[in-house]
């Protein structure tokens, strides 16, 4: 199939869906499904760029802080637990429990203790994103090839350099898996925490619009969140591909996995 054919075929379903939606809502009278014109005009009213400073930027800042805290805590602690067997055994049941807990559960207690401010949101995101990072770091470190550790000892590499040059890069592909899941969980928790308790943010605005039957705002919010999720993922992939380019290239060379 030619490149053009693939592009056409690939865009067929989205176009058909959009055309059907546009046709079905052309009267603009349905309370739940507004016309595309009213969604796009609401989108540009709200998000280009009137509410960006008040409701998008602070949310993104919380997500960024929470995610950075998750990385800054999850990866070093994961390294430690991956290498110190007794410490891992001591905490294993607690970690197993925490990883099975649906992440949304972090929201109500933290809001009760810390209120609905930025601190509780950053902490909620950090917790939700931190566990996947912690677990994949432990996994990656524990799977370090014994042969490479032998090499490290034979060439008398210091402990610090062994961790930095051998253990961490070897665990990086695994950690990147956790980082991707963690980002998705963090984004979800950001929106969810704004829906539960907040006085600003996209999630808050959407829940308020829901309460007042303002469906164009809801659909404009869906469009915005979809674009944000897509862009966040693209950014993540760009960073990931830089960090573990060797792994991806090696996999492409060996042809499998």
């Amino acid at each position, binding site marked *: 199939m030619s490149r053009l054919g693939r592009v056409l075929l690939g865009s067929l379903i989205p176009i058909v869906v959009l055309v059907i939606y546009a046709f079905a809502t052309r009267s603009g009278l349905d309370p739940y499904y507004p016309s595309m014109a009213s969604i796009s005009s609401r989108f540009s009213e709200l998000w280009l760029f009137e509410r960006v400073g008040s409701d998008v930027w602070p949310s993104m800042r919380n997500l960024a802080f929470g995610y950075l805290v998750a990385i800054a805590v999850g990866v070093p602690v994961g390294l430690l637990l991956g290498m110190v067997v007794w410490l891992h055994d001591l905490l294993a049941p607690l970690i197993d429990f925490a990883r099975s807990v649906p992440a949304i559960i972090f929201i109500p207690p933290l809001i009760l203790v810390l209120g609905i401010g930025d601190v509780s949101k950053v902490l909620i995101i950090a917790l939700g994103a931190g566990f996947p990072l912690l677990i994949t770091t432990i996994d990656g470190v524990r799977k370090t090839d014994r*042969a490479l550790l032998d090499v490290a000892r*034979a*060439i008398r590499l210091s402990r610090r350099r062994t961790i930095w*040059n*051998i253990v961490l890069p070897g665990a*990086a592909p695994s950690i990147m898996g956790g980082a991707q899941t963690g980002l998705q969980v963090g984004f979800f928790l950001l929106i969810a925490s704004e829906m539960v308790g907040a006085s600003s943010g996209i999630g808050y605005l959407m829940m308020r619009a829901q309460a007042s039957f303002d469906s164009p705002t809801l659909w404009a919010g869906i469009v915005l969140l979809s674009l944000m999720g897509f862009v966040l993922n693209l950014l993540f992939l760009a960073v990931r591909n830089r960090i573990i380019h060797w792994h991806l290239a*090696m996999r492409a060379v060996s042809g499998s996995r």
Partner: protein
Amino acid sequence: MNDLRQPRLVMEAGSKTYYSRNASKEVLAGIDLTVHASEFLSIVGPSGAGKTTLLRCLSGLMPLSSGRIILDGEVLTEPSPVVSVVFQEYSRSLMPWMTVADNVALPLRGRKVPRASVKARVGEVLESVGLSGTERQHPWQLSGGMQQRVAIARALVTQPEVLFMDEPFASVDAQTRLDLEDLTRRLQQERQMSVVLITHDIDEAIYLSDRVVVLSKEPATVREIIENDLGAVRDQISTRELPAFMERRSHVLGLIREIQHAKAVPAELSTSSS
């Protein structure tokens, strides 16, 4: 001739026993072994004889259960800066996230070698193993033989006086194997280092070595040490046609068959009874 030999690395009554929860297995039993300066020494033995354990103990990677190892007059308890090791599985012993140059430079990290001289030394060893120009590639972009050359370059970059090699050519094709054998012998001659080669290939051991150590198995002891003076310069065709070569080959093969046969009988009995 004997007077010129300087003992470099000595194992005295080296024994190693592995313990698990309810069993113990003696792998090395009272091994006395001397590695001389600038000699090429091969260690052969039937599979499962504990060759790799012996190498791990000799190189300081693993402590002995009893006995000791003396390097240049001092007791060795951990890997020494004047010793290098080439491991068996080249694909697992190189860091896939590093370029060839970074892999080779790794042992110099933390040795306070200036950056410029690191670069020069990496270039020099890569040239001596025939890999100039691959600096910026990653190991997995190279063939198996070339990867093993990278591993050899990494071992040489610290200018070791003793080089251990654990079945280094086991997983490359036959032609590459011959090339790597000649490379190893040439490097040993050029750098006047001691090489201790673990191999299960008797021809390879006799072709390359100045002395061949034959191990018996379960537990490993030194069965015989064969002086193997086939001259300083070896050639894949003419050396292997020498009467002395063929005579020693038959001798070692016979020894190994004897060792395996002696152990085979009780092993068969135990499997049929279980």
